[in-house]
């Protein structure tokens, strides 16, 4: 770079260097870069997007959906005709009901789409923050912090944290420092709450499995509880997923859970198994409860990993330890 000699400039023309949070300009599109360039600092292998489906399958699904839509349309039209033929009043009522059904369907779809977009946004933020934590440059973190602040604008529970973040960040911090500050000031509190949620959910599933009379029932309970857990955690971190969104999250996490083992070492897995079998010796049902609880806990922690806008560092990573202790004391509580 060419050398510019030192000089004094007109103070009137100087603008403060951009700071956090920005007054919300239109969000610049984050380039969603592949994680290939990242060093092995991440502990969970970056989640792969949904596998590309074969175009044939897509055509099939599309065609069937269209058929069903047309059939439903025909049937509705038929129904309305018949209702009008019977009486004017009945016809109007049926038309109204059909209209409401149509509008709500569209609204639901829009909401799902919006929630999917929020999910994608968090993923982009994760990618960005991972990049920023390795640079000592300036300027891009402002955008990142701005985007994050916007994500949490309508959250009264985070107002204090965001205000503190604004206080703490100065123009002297570089990008990595800003990301670390966001991590410490805003996300640590969320982590604590998310961990409590996971703890509660895993206890719930463990108890439900232990106490449920029929096997089918506890499968249903566990599935429902896990889905709810994932939604709760995603909502906490600002993703607010709809049904499709949480299913997608759940599916991606199930794909991840084997690898993740929520990043615990093989030693801990062995302890889980041992603890499980010990409990199973006491009571099969309680043993199953503990195992289901641990599964839920793993799903919950994986959800935390997936939904957090800034990836965990080795120090902040949540551990299964406390949940495991809690669950293994369950047989004592139940018996």
């Amino acid at each position: 770079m060419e050398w510019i000699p030192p000089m004094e400039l007109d103070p009137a023309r100087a603008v403060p260097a951009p700071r956090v949070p920005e007054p919300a300009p239109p969000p610049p599109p984050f380039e969603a870069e592949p994680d290939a360039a990242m060093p092995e600092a991440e502990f969970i292998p970056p989640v792969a997007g949904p596998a590309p489906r074969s175009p044939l399958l897509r055509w099939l699904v599309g065609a069937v959906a269209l058929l069903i839509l047309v059939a439903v349309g025909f049937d509705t039209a038929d129904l309305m005709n018949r209702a009008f033929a019977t009486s004017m009043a009945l016809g109007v009522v049926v038309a109204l009901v059909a209209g409401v059904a149509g509008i709500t369907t569209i609204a639901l779809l829009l909401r799902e789409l919006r929630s999917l977009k929020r999910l994608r946004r968090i993923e982009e933020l994760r990618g960005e923050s991972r990049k920023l934590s390795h640079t000592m440059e300036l300027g891009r973190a402002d955008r990142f912090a701005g985007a994050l602040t916007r994500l949490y604008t309508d959250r009264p529970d985070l107002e204090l944290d965001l205000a503190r973040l604004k206080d703490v960040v100065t123009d002297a911090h570089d990008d990595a420092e800003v990301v670390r500050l966001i991590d410490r000031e805003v996300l640590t509190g969320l982590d604590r709450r998310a961990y409590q949620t996971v703890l509660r959910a895993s206890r719930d599933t463990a108890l439900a499995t232990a106490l449920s009379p029929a096997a089918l029932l506890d499968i249903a309970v566990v599935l429902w509880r896990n889905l709810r857990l994932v939604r709760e955690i995603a909502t906490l971190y600002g993703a607010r997923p709809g049904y499709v969104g949480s299913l997608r999250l759940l599916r991606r996490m199930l794909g991840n859970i084997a690898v993740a083992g929520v990043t615990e070492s093989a030693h801990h897995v062995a302890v889980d198994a041992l603890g499980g079998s010990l409990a199973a010796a006491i009571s099969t049902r309680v043993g199953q409860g503990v195992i289901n609880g641990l599964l839920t806990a793993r799903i919950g922690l994986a959800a935390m990993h997936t939904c957090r806008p800034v990836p965990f560092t080795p120090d902040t990573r949540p551990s299964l330890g406390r949940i495991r202790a809690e669950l293994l004391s369950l047989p004592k509580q139940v018996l």
Partner: protein
Amino acid sequence: MSFLDSLFDQAGETAGRFLEADVRLGVTGLRRAGKTVFTTAVVDNLLRAGRLPFLDVVASGRFQAARLRPQPDADVPRFAFEEHLATITAAQPDWPEPTTGISQLRLAIRYRPNSALRRTLQSVATVNLDIVDYPGEWLLDLPMLRQSFAEWSALSLELAARSPRDALSVDWRGWLSAIDPAGPDEEEEARRGAALYTEYLHACRRAESFLSIIQPGRFVEPGDLKDAPLLTFCPLPGERRGRGTLWALMESRYEAYKSSVVRRFFAEHFARLNRQVVLIDVLGALNAGVSGLGDMKRALEMSLEPFRHGSSGWLDWLFGSKIDRVLFAATKADHIASSQHPNLKGILDSLVAEARRTIRFEGAQVETMALASLKCTETVVTEHEGRTLRCIQGVPVGRDRPTVLYPGEIPDGADAMTVARNRSYRFMPFRPPADAGRDGRGLPHVRLDQALQFLLGDYLE
């Protein structure tokens, strides 16, 4: 029952007192690096704890409070924290007078321990932080402990003959060539030599070329030793001479200086330190050009010498330093735009690189950082001939109105020496901000919290 309760309380209290940890933090710096401001800012920020997001104990909400306490060593002057703070935060803010000599301040920090085990022992823990502020020249004296008079003389003479010192030491070297080291030990002659040598050291210190190696340190900061025979010697050329010669006189005074000044400082202060921060005015050296940087690099290497003591011989083991973390901080980072901080750190890294490896080998941790104890400027962006420049805005010393300054881009690390040769910089001194500390959150700073986390973080777990 109540008797038992009070007994338990007593026991708990006693145990708590035993569990109080003491940590001694040495603050030193080469030549006008900002020791006083650093210490003042550290104390003020710890007392108010409003601007320390990177200090874990504060960020996690475990910090309770800190307050000043009477210092343990009654014979060391107290660091005049209140006066310095008053000068900085006055209506007409100014920089505090640079201190000479050693001073000390004790700060007690109360916090809740992090680990569950320690929490069951004591819900609130206390760390007594003793900040010991001493001139960097005293640190540079420590390598003398291992050098004989002949060795020291050879090194000093060689240094004095090198540019840019050769011009400053002309008078003294003229005197050297005129006398005979093997001549009789005339007190007059010795005084004359010491006076010329002291003049040369003062000139080095004042010089535009920003020279850092000043040895022996008490020659320029004599304190209560002014005119004592201890300070009337200077390096002499040649071999060891017999008894009754000037050489022998100088040698005996050199040895006396070593044993009653340097070794005393080492045993009474330096060897008791747990942590050390060395402040360095890298920007000042850059301002002065390449000779300043080179001299600073040598001074830094010398200052690291004492940390190597740890494991070489039983005497060193007895007196050896127990410092296990050393921080080298390039101060006045607010004199450049924040985008330049990585480059500043890079230069510092390259200055201490070699010595750093040695210290690491001895088992101490070393860290470098670019910081500002008191943040006087804001980074601003401005246009100049179609290019966007990151500049700094602040009120320069001696003016009333803020200005926007573009001080020049700093080269990054490795090629600093070569690039600095043909560039000129203009780092201006700025006045403390008018509203410093008015919001009650502590003085504004750059990375002071990260420095504290490195220096004290493990004590506050």
